[in-house]
């Protein structure tokens, strides 16, 4: 469905009136998402997971590398010629409180994309909007369709956000932290809804999240990002139960699950916090925080993603001596 190959994204920043800088948001990243498959993009803030999601939607253009959709290279297509793609690939935003226009009724919000697509008959638009509302369990559709976003709970608003994406019958949806702003008790309802839609319609998903436990439930494969690179990827159960990269292991160890024994033990933590990088990393990006770093090796070169067991890849010198070679180098 979607393939990204060795893509890098660089953002220009303004550091002052005369100074400008660069942030390497993604550096040599490759992913593939199959038909009807969900890939979880997991990482902390600044890891590049959102940029990668947006790159697959061609909302950002890569500095190098390629993006293709159903085998067609769309890396450098102009916006005017991406119309077909815009209908088939959709996004569900993180914040259901600010991503819906508060002055529009739910029906109008959901019908807006159809209007843009040139569906002229009002009756047809309403029919499709109601079908989308029913698909996200906002039933009776007439009651919810006539509401304004402010009259709904966070969970209901996020369902409207999903209906808005669904109404175009997309093949691919990027769900960008779709439940992080919703109460813990309502999260699973939203994720099961996405899982159900996937089963019924065969939609492919990129599920962007910092909640690795929810990824287990709503994904087939997982890619763990750190400072713009993929450090580990594989089947979701394998990666969570047997993490190889020290960063993945630290991320998992940091999550408190409800357990009365937790309070009696200190959590093993990695020190420090990630900071945005202004240059493409020349060594392992996790080096400065890694509890298992090998001086002289890990700070001398960048580890490449290597398959350690079937479909389970890790970029770490603990497992392989292969270094990353940027695209274009012989």
């Amino acid at each position, binding site marked *: 469905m979607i393939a990204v190959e060795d893509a890098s994204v660089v953002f220009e920043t303004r550091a002052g009136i005369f100074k400008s800088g660069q942030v390497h948001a993604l550096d040599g990243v490759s992913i593939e998402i199959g038909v009807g498959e969900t890939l979880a993009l997991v990482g902390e803030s600044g890891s590049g997971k959102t940029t990668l999601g947006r790159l697959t939607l061609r909302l950002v253009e890569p500095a190098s590398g390629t993006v293709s959709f159903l085998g067609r290279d769309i890396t450098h297509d102009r916006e005017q010629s991406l119309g077909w793609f815009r209908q088939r690939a959709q996004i569900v935003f993180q914040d259901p409180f600010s991503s819906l226009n508060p002055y529009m009724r739910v029906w109008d919000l959901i019908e807006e994309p159809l209007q843009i697509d040139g569906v002229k008959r009002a009756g047809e638009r309403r029919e499709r909007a109601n079908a989308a509302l029913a698909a996200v369990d906002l039933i009776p559709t007439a009651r919810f369709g006539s509401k304004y976003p402010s009259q709904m709970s966070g969970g209901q608003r996020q369902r409207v956000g999903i209906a808005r994406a669904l109404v175009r019958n997309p093949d691919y949806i990027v769900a960008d932290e779709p439940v992080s702003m919703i109460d813990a*008790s309502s999260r*699973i309802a939203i994720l099961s809804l996405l899982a159900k839609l996937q089963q019924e319609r065969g939609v492919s998903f990129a599920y962007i999240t910092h909640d690795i436990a929810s990824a287990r*439930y709503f994904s087939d494969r997982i890619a763990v990002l750190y400072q713009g690179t993929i450090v580990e990827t594989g089947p979701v159960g394998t990666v969570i139960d047997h993490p190889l990269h020290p960063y993945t292991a630290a991320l998992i160890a940091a999550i408190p*699950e409800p357990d*009365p024994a937790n*309070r009696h033990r200190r959590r093993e933590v990695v020190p420090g916090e990630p900071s945005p990088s202004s240059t493409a990393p020349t060594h392992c990006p996790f080096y400065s925080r890694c509890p298992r770093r090998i001086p002289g090796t890990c700070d001398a070169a960048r580890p490449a993603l290597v398959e350690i067991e079937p479909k389970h890849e890790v970029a770490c010198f603990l497992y392989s001596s292969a270094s990353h070679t940027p695209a274009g180098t012989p």
Partner: protein
Amino acid sequence: MSTPLLRVEDLLLYYRAGNHPVHAVDGVSFTIEDRGQAVGIVGESGSGKTSMATALMRMLPKNVESFRGSIQLAGQELTTLSDDQFRREIRWKKIAMVFQGAMNVLNPVVRVGEQIAETLIFDGMEKKTALARADALLERVGLPAGIGSRYAHELSGGQRQRVVIATALVMNPELLILDEPTSALDVSVQAQIMNLLKDLKEDPGISMIFITHDIGLASDLCDSIAVAYAGQHVEFGSADRVLVEPHHPYSSLLLSSLPRLHDPAPPVPMPGEPPDLTHPPAGCRFHPRCPYAFAPCPVIVPPEYRVEDGGHARCFLNDREIAGDRYQIHLQATIDA
């Protein structure tokens, strides 16, 4: 039995909003027995967690319709104190609070050390001594030396949250209220802050009220847990019991709605939607969403049934006479799950 450090009894806080009062806190009771213990208040947004905390700090908005109940700190009744007395003797000195999002409202043009020392200087301490005390506090919360002379924007998110915690500790409070102190932080930084809070519980033995929507996070710190729902605590008890053997269906549904790291079984979604606090459901507030609701639930408000660990649960299923065969049905369901 000795006097508990904190005893909150039948606390009630209603706001005026339009024609109907908002029942933000509606009959809440819990205790913190000893110094250095933490109670977690767990609930979804709108369950009245933050309102309860602002009531304890007596930082109430203007539209309060009624505020009743008893709050005793080490035996001293606080609700009868005058506002002036409360400000001089209790707020920040005995009870301090870390507000949600406080790390984003540090003063951008004052060095963080001076922000902490400000309170002490205002309180009559000499500037040099106050700055030294601020530096000691910053070190206590795990920040490197010299950070006191930096500005907030120069610090990372985790460092700013440590500064906020140091600010709350400046007057040596006995009780620290933390409102979602890690919600804006990444998990690895969250774990660092939780370790710091664990340290502060032990030394200097600060008691804490930890407000969160994440019951897993509460279990990382708290000795007892109160589960808040629609302005009430539907359940309160030791963490050892509430997390393992909840006596209220909302608590057990909350626990089973969480995805578990090492369990591929799908979590069970919580049914229904949160209630509207201007029109809370009659009877048990949870009954419209409760799969175990029966005859008395929509009609009668369940009392706080005592639970063997000294806690309580507001659910008729704990009443052998009323529940009959249903008695402990939900407990069984939890164990099966």
